[in-house]
Every structure is written in structure tokens, then in C-alpha cells.
């Protein structure tokens, strides 16, 4: 089973739980398992084309999956995956 760390702002969709676990062979499968079992969270992760939203990053351990194989990054038992919202902004 892989472990997915839910960021605080999305825990209202997971009944307050910070950790979700599921069997998944890659990152995409893990994310799909999450949104299939938790209503309302999908639109915060994926856009209408099914692509990961630009302001959502996913880390495997301490590594950005964009530096690995993206959502196709393979997972092994006990891997820890984190959903990380991009935090940015500014006045103008």
C-alpha cells in the first residue's frame, strides 16, 4: 500500500484525515483512487482535460514527480506521496 499525504486545505474532503492509503502501481492510480472515494476533491486536483492542475504539485518522498516520470511515476509498497499546493501570489 502506498501512502498519500493530504494537504491541510483539502482535508475537508477526507473527513479531516491527513493520510490516505491505497494499492496503486503509479501516482496517477493513487490519485484516482483518492478522488473516486472522496467526493468534491477531484476538481481541486485535475482540470477538465484530466491534467493535473498547474498549481498542484506531487512529491514522492522529497522529490517532485515532475523530475521523475510525472503521474506515471511508479510506486512501491510503503512509498509516501504528498500533494502540495503551489503557494504564490503578489499585489499586481
Amino acid at each position, binding site marked *: 500500500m502506498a501512502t498519500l499525504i493530504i494537504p491541510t*486545505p483539502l482535508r475537508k474532503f477526507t473527513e479531516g484525515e491527513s493520510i490516505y492509503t491505497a494499492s496503486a502501481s503509479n501516482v496517477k492510480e493513487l490519485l484516482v483512487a483518492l478522488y473516486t472515494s472522496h467526493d468534491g476533491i477531484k476538481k481541486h486536483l485535475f482540470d477538465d482535460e484530466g491534467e493535473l492542475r498547474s498549481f498542484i504539485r506531487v512529491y514522492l518522498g522529497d522529490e517532485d514527480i515532475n523530475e521523475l516520470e510525472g503521474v506515471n511515476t511508479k510506486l512501491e509498497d510503503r512509498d509516501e506521496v504528498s500533494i502540495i499546493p503551489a503557494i*504564490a*501570489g503578489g499585489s499586481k
Partner: protein
Amino acid sequence: MNNQFLPLNVAESAMTEMRSHGEDAFPNECCGFFYGEETDSERIVTLAKRIENVKEGDQRRRFEISGKDYLAAERFAAREGLSLLGIYHSHPVHPAIPSEHDLAVAMPWFSYIIVSVEPTGVDHVRSWQLTPDREFAEERIVESK
């Protein structure tokens, strides 16, 4: 003022830290996280922590927090038994009103505190939260000792 959100009760020490950071970073934007707990009646901010603004280029109108720093913030909250309640940043010589850039990447549930800073010091501080319609609405700040 919108009252669909709980009041944000900010400890004096946390407010002082956010205001000081805004002044120290001036004329650039500062940023950081704040932590505490949420009860049935209020959000209580007990701690603010400065984070490096990693935005490349002109930081007078932009800020960015790295993914690694975000991950560390979540781990810190879990370790300390606190909730990561939101993000603060400063608007140098600009009102504490969220911009389109702030809105574009905003997450639900988080509180977004903005510190407006003038050359003479902090002018005002306001806090905002995303509505279900993906608009910002203001939440009331209560300062406590």
C-alpha cells in the same frame, strides 16, 4: 465583512512577527505560514513562521513558496500537533486586498493574511478566505494577548 467564516483570533506575538517581517522585507514581498487550531467558534493563530520568498526576478510585486518549504510546514504542523491554518504575505505600497494572482492559485479553507506596508511601516492587515464560488471574502481578525 463576510461572516460565513469563523473569526481569526491572532495572538499578539504572531501578529507582531508577520508585521515585522513585512517591514524587514520592504520594498519586497515577504511570505510565511501560520499555525494554530480551529474550534467551533474561531480560528486561533498561535504561531507565525517566516519562509523565504523564492520568486525569481522582481519580488516587489510577487512571492512564491517552494514545494519543499510547504512540505516542511505540513510536517512541522503534524509534529507539533498544530494545524497549518494559512499563508501570510505582504503588499508593499499596495492595499491588503487579494490580487488576481493571489486568487488564481488560492486553495479552499486556508486563511490568507495580507500585510499592507508603506515606507513608514505597516499600514493595515486584513485576512481573506476562498468561498465555494472561488472568490475571496474577508474574515474578521481579532487580536489577542
